[in-house]
């Protein structure tokens, strides 16, 4: 698989580390509600289709990326920096 890092350009997925569902992981709850944190840490959807995922360019620029990938075809439709919540199209 090839990922087009907005900073480094298109690279092999060997250079990246995957973490998981971007929309879940990037929305850390505030406050002290155990249920909310339980959802945040453990509950994940498993879509057959477009999925926004966090990938870390560990052997590159060390940027965390939001990669929009079709889980059925592995086609990547968008890659953006995580620090903008994955907004902005760069792929």
């Amino acid at each position, binding site marked *: *698989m*090839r990922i087009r890092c907005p900073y480094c350009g298109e690279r*092999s997925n060997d250079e990246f*580390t995957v*973490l998981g569902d971007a929309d879940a*992981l*990037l929305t*850390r*709850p*505030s406050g*002290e*509600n*155990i249920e909310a*944190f*339980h959802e*945040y*840490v453990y509950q994940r959807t498993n879509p057959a289709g477009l999925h926004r995922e*966090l990938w*870390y360019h*560990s052997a590159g620029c*060390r*940027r*965390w990326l939001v990669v929009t990938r079709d889980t059925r*075809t*592995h*086609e*990547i439709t968008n890659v953006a*920096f*995580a*620090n*903008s919540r994955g907004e902005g199209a760069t792929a």
Partner: protein
Amino acid sequence: MSSAGRLPTGGLIDRARPIQFRFDGRSMSGFAGDTLASALIGNGVGLVGRSFKYHRPRGILSAGSEEPNALAELRSGARREPNTRATTVELFDGLEAQSQNRWPSLGFDILALNGLAGGFLSAGFYYKTFMWPAAFWEKVYEPLIRRAAGLGRSASAEDPDHYDKAHAHCDILVIGAGPAGLMAALTAARSGARVILADEDSLPGGRLNGERHEIDGRAGSKWAATATAELAAMPNVRLMRRTTIFGVYDGGTYGAVERVNDHVAVPPPFQPRQRMWRIYARRAILAAGALERPLVFANNDRPGIMLAGAVRSYINRFGVTPGQRLAVFTCSDNGWRAAADAAAAGVSIEAVIDSRSDVAPALGADLVARGIRIFRGAQVIRALGSRALQAIEVRDHTGRVSSILCDALAMSGGWSPVTHLTSHLGGRPVWSEAHAAFVPGTLPPGMSVVGAANGAMTLARALASGRDAGARTASDLDRTVSDAPLPKADDEPASVRALWHVSGGRGPAFVDFQNDVTAKDVGLANREGYRSVELLKRYTTLGMATDQGKTSNVNALAILASERAQPVAAVGTTLNRPPYTPVAIGALAGHHRGKDFRATRLSPLHEWAREQGAAFIESGAWLRASWFPRPGENDWLESASREVRAVRSAVGLTDVSTLGKIDIQGPDAATLLDRVYCNTFSTLQVGRARYGVMLREDGFVMDDGTTSRLAADHFVMTTTTANAVGIMRHLEFCHQGLWPDLDVQMASVSEQWAQLAIAGPKSRETLTRIVDRQHDISDAAFPYLTAREITVLGGTRARLFRISYSGELAYELAVPAGVGSAVASAIMEAGKDLGIQPYGLEAMGIMRIEKGHVAGNEINGQTTARDLGLGKMMSRKKDYIGRVLAERPALVTPDRWGLVGLKPVDWTSRIRAGAHLIPIGAAATTANDLGYVTSVAFSPTFERWIGLGLISGGASKHGTRIRLVDLLRGTDVEAEVCDPVFYDPKGERLHG
């Protein structure tokens, strides 16, 4: 002995360069340009192997990588390689080849009796026959079957050759260098696109080299050579011969294996045997051609019966013939060309049998003119002969059966496009009645298919489709394609009417030659309910092993379809997966084997430790000094105990460079640390160090270490060795993903700094001798937990931290990695008269247990800060990762397993890590399990074994007694539960 042999003239071989080789110990000779298969035919060898199950004599079926029969072991000793296809092995001087799966010899095989018991070994025989008694399976049945049914033997010694890995990028990857592939590559390359042309053969040209078609009025092989030369001369083209594209992967990634030196006896120095390529292509053009199908009739596996296209290849390319009296059995126009080619080479044609009655009269008119017997609407119903073909029985259109003497039979059941690579991402080939074959269906993104692989079965159509795809693909990539005339070639007759199975002959009619699956087996599987293609494959083993059913799958599906009285399209097909042809594990591993499986990391103090005589141990990727043996010491414990005593009584020096070091800077650095550590760092004064504990968001402990504040906006963090990479990633995630508004930057500086621990009551005195005078390190000026940038040895930059893992007065000194060993040597010199000694990982481990510090055994992903006695560090005044979930009810119950110390009641007893904690008087059962021992050491300080453990109730159990039961090692020791800090519980020595 068959009457196969070398033709007096012809072929693309170099008759001026004879090559000597051995087959089953017999000396033979061939020519440069031969394959092992063609050379064997040239030497009159027809029988080359025994079949997998029935040990039937087998000859060469094909002339390519689809070969199911002619498998050989190559070379000897450590380079012995099993199951190579003789049809793709290039002949080299001194080649040693052995036939396989025969005992005691190829000519006389005792296990051929299996052939007589054919009914017994029919489809599903594994499942039906060896059912009982169950105990017989492992001891009797399986060893017997394995001896009887087998392929070659791999080498027992380590492979002495190197295997390389490489990456390549291109605009357009063209797979296959036959006429369509060459034309596509030429068209694309002339537009300036970066092209890679890969072909599994050593000689580009594909079928052009095996046939006599003309292009632009000259031999097709000549045209191929000219096209290849043009491509080779272009700077934007990489021509990869002997390279199989074996797999298609996501994002235009293709796996390829290049057989760099398989065609020589031993690779030249510094060259790999094979090279694995990962090719990244924006577009791909698949020109993989088509594979000819055998015809299924009784005894169709007799040596001398060969695919018609293979007969043509052997005659036209290699100048050898499989026999002197050839018959042809075909259901396609294409098969007739074998008769024409053989006749042109002077081989006697005994008969041409076409199963179609309405064959165009023009076809074979020249053969008729020469008086050759032609049968239309007829079938070969049986082959006669055992170790070599002697005759065939032909049933003509009236039903009359006659025998025809012949020593070779060319058969053509039509051609199946090589759709394998189109399926690797899930695309399913579709049935085409017109081609009587599966053609590509959904394609991988960026791939187009040309030539015979796409059903363009004639030369003119293949060239045109290659040209069109090359032009279209190049234009797609914004290249300008110039108009060049299409080379002229003919559309030869190519019609086909499938003939799937000839019934009525006595004897097994093989569908899958490699797995000995017959037409009868396919029918049986269907009758027994294995009606889906996937089940058929697994029940009969059809399409498995080294050839993956390249010559058998379509015939089998068609026979299954006819058994089910359904069209082939309704039966469907199995999907091909990578690899297209077998790939050696060595090629996949490349240089990553043995100690090179992964990189070995060496500390910047490695040289110093080596000079000190360290015994090293692998710790993750690191090689770390474990202990430093001295003369007269018998084992590691003696050495480590001496090292501990030196630290406790005088001073020791150890290497802690492997700890992760992260430099964190920016106005919000303290805020970030507050949010990732459970304790507070914003209150830390500049010039001070603090122990910190990080939790995961689920509330369990993730890592610990010391972080120091060098300036208001500058911290340096240490992590454990094992988690250095993970913590860096975690911090980046927290910053970029959770709190991107924080103004903070960080960088891993683990490699940049060498770090040494100087520990013991005389550590300050030692350090004073190397620290530059202007830096006061007295206890008053540099108290416990001070962290400051200083200089040593006359201006060398350093950072000094007064922190202690051993429990003694101690420091950690960080210096630039390049001077690490020199500084360590200077410290050893400075402390010589004070009794300084180097100490290793073992001594460090003993001292941390004496001091009750937790390490990886305790921070195991299942323990909370409270479990480890660190609950007081958890701030209540701020938010941090893990804070909320650490308060989950199950993580705060009083009976959770908490950290305690353990010492055997009988002070001479040894205790073992891993032993379970069982109440005295209770049975050693899971229900009574209260915890376990996490770490143990023989303490030279207390001269007894001590341990750390996790026990239900934790500190509330101090003073009680418990059994340490280890059922694996058979030990059962009574111990007292105590505080985990055995040594200096008040911490007075740290402050000394």
